[in-house]
């Protein structure tokens, strides 16, 4: 590789790194810190034992339900995610921990209530603002407390646009609802089905009740069938939000109602039918969640952990740097430069990835970075040892540097593949803190290979091509080799170089 191309490698790397940090500084980014580093409430929930197999859809719906509740709690940047069977909830800076625990651990509540009155989204349009509850718009309301099943309540009707996406809460209608007529516990199943009709096929959601539910359902629909307008609707309420309020069909006879323990809700689309079925199932099969972990971390402790982690990393870096300089002198100093750039790249990427993909840095993540200092140092060491081998084998300094790179890079790739595999498997299959650790470890492995192929290669190559640096005792390029070997290796090299220089002067 020519001197120019080596310089290009270094420049490309430095410009890329500069660009990354320029972006970070310009956009004023800082790393997204995990709860263990900034304080807050963190919980992992598991489905309680003895509930049989719980399917993915129900777990996803449970996550959605918890998310709704947390939104109502008003937490700034909540993070709710499912990992396998585990639901991870991260709530930074929550003041009322008891409320948080009660709310995220609660079982979903499914209720069927009669619609008494429809209220517009904006209470300003409302003449009757008798109750304070009725006065609040949906985005002002808190849906956290469980309303009395025997009382009238005002709840919000989920508003969706033509594509089925949720509208902003301030555009949701509110419904005044009667007491609970049928509870989710009496619903045994819900399925989305495609029903043949005279005018083609229609999606619908089929409901099935147990005997108690069937009787209650027949009674309420019999009553509703005698009414017209909004009051003919039966609201399906999950966790204090009215999912839908379908009217009782016109062909249902007044006083008779829908019998047989089954009912049908017409849907506008397949998605619509499936969504309702999942909502109903999640509420009907009340999945019990157990807290796998529940942690509250005070901001002081988070801050201290962060400081400790950073300090440990810094000290680790310095110790490794000292060792490398002791072992390799000038070449070691170059390795220290590589380590510093490694640190800058990994840290920069952690910050940028926080912005791009929402990656949060946790204590375990910091540990991953610290462990990876060893990986980064190893690349430098493999290269330098290889270089010494090549010099011992009689190569000139310059060709030794190039040959050593080829061989060392191959080794680096092989070793890093194993580390990277480990990180990916850990990331995909593990829960909780393990993921943060695996992520930074995998990231560091990639950065290590990248840095090695560009900056390390370029820098070492250029140093080996610079006669003054090659001969400078402090660089240590000639150390670590026996005198005979050196004499043999350098005699030729020196002569050639001296000759070259003379030519240059002429």
């Amino acid at each position, binding site marked *: 590789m020519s001197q120019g191309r080596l310089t290009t490698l270094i420049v490309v790397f430095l410009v890329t790194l500069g660009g990354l940090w320029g972006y970070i500084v310009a956009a004023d980014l800082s790393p997204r810190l995990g709860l*263990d580093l900034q*304080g807050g409430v963190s919980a*992992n929930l*598991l489905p309680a034992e003895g509930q049989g197999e719980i399917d993915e859809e129900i777990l996803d719906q449970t996550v959605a339900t918890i998310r709704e509740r947390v939104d109502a709690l008003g937490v700034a940047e909540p993070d709710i995610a499912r990992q*396998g069977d585990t639901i991870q909830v991260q709530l930074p800076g929550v003041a009322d921990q*008891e409320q948080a625990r009660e709310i995220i651990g609660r079982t979903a509540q499914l209720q069927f209530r009669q619609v008494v009155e429809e209220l517009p989204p904006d209470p300003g349009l409302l003449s009757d603002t008798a109750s304070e509850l009725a006065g609040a718009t949906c985005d002002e309301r808190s849906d956290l407390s469980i309303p009395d099943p025997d009382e009238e309540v005002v709840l919000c009707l989920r508003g969706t646009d033509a594509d089925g996406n949720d509208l902003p809460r301030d555009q949701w209608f509110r419904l005044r609802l009667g007491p609970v007529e049928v509870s989710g516990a009496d619903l045994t199943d819900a399925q989305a089905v495609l029903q043949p009709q005279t005018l083609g096929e229609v999606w619908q959601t089929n409901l099935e009740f147990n005997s108690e539910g069937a009787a209650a359902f027949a009674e309420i629909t019999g009553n509703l069938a005698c009414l017209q307008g909004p009051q003919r609707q039966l609201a399906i309420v999950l966790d204090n939000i009215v999912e839908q309020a379908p009217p009782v069909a016109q062909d249902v006879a007044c006083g008779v109602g829908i019998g047989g323990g089954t009912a049908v809700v017409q849907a506008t689309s397949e998605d619509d039918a499936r969504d309702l079925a999942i909502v109903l199932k999640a509420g009907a099969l009340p999945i019990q969640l*157990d*807290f*796998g*972990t*529940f*942690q*509250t971390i*005070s901001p002081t*402790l988070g801050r*201290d*952990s962060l400081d*400790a982690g950073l300090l*440990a*990393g810094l*000290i*680790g*870096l310095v*110790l*490794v740097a000292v*060792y490398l300089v002791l*072992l390799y002198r000038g070449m070691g100093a170059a390795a220290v430069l590589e380590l510093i750039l490694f640190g800058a790249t990994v840290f920069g990427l952690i910050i940028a990835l926080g912005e791009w993909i929402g990656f949060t840095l946790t204590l*375990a993540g*910091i540990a991953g970075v*610290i*462990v990876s*200092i*060893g*990986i980064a140092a*190893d690349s430098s*060491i*493999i290269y330098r*040892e290889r270089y*010494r081998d090549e010099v011992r084998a009689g190569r000139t300094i310059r060709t030794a540097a190039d040959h050593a790179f080829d061989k060392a890079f*191959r*080794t680096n790739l*092989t*070793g890093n*593949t194993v*580390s990277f*595999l*480990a990180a990916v498997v*850990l990331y995909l299959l593990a*829960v909780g*803190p*393990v993921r943060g650790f695996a992520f930074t470890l995998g990231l560091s492995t990639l950065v290590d290979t990248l840095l090695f192929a560009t900056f390390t290669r370029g820098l070492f190559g250029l140093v080996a091509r610079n006669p003054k640096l090659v001969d400078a*005792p*402090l660089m*240590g390029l*000639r*150390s*670590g080799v*026996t*005198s005979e070997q*050196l004499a043999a290796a350098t005699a030729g090299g020196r002569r050639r170089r001296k000759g070259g220089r003379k030519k240059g002067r002429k």
Partner: protein
Amino acid sequence: MSNDKTNVDTAPEEFDAATTGRREDTDSPLARLLTGRSNADIVGSSRRWLIVTAVVLGISLAALAVRGLNFSIEFTGGSSFVEEGATQTFTAAELEETLVEFGITDAIVQIVDDGTGAQISTPAISDIEGVDDLEVAAAIEEQTGGDVSVSTIGPRWGEAVTGQAIRGLIVFLLLVITYITFRFEWRMAVSAVVTLAHDVLVTIGLYALVGFTVSPSTVIAILTILGYSLYDTVVVFDRITEDASKLTSVSTVSYGEVANTALNQVLVRSVSTSITSVLPVASLLVIGANLLGAATLSDLALALFIGMTVGTYSSIIIAAPLLVWLKEKDPKFAELKERAAAGSA
């Protein structure tokens, strides 16, 4: 390290023939190691190492059988309270008293940070759905005037974490065996996995022996050790493969001798890499252990510290000799070995 020695190496007079002989005479084994002239017969003395390894493994297994592992509350369920920045004075006995008022009798209370902090761990406090531990935290806060962080772990959590770790382990091992088999050969995959099993056993054995607490961080660390141990082994194998590729049917050296030379050549790297890997981990261990609450850091660091050390020596002492043993079962290399032995006799 032998810095003075290497300093001499780079001095300009090193090209002076007169100084050469003198220096050769005084070279210590360490200096020989650092200058790549180490010639320890690692493969040849593998029998001796086998005995050492067998003894170490025996102790590990015995420790596991007799003492068992000491699992943290993450596995057994329980609560831990970390008190920080107390503004009122208190004693461990006073805190214990408060806990007893809640019916908690077997708590472990430690006062840290010159009396301004405390760490308390208790077995599972009643029902985890209850609010008890938050009430306990509030009571401690009232008593100390500081901030209390609470961790409550359900009894099933450890099971879930361990289950996932085991699944991850199996997938990882399959992937790695496949990778090494394709990149190198199956004998190296076998040697690497045996080495790996050794590393994990010795690490866990040490945990049993000393009675260190096994936490989920330990599990993470052990998974990392697997990666690290393999990484180290693969680097050694890479070198052996490269050197052995020059072996032909008319060579006068055996596979074992080639492997031994390769091992000696990568010895500095192995030692240096271990040192540079262990230094940051040691820093993590010291800082984590001395800093209140950074238990994740110190747990992780401790297991890594042990595992990395074990992983380094095993990649040299176990992986390579095992590979040579497997290799020389192959008629082609067995013949080479015979010829090499005959030649040197």
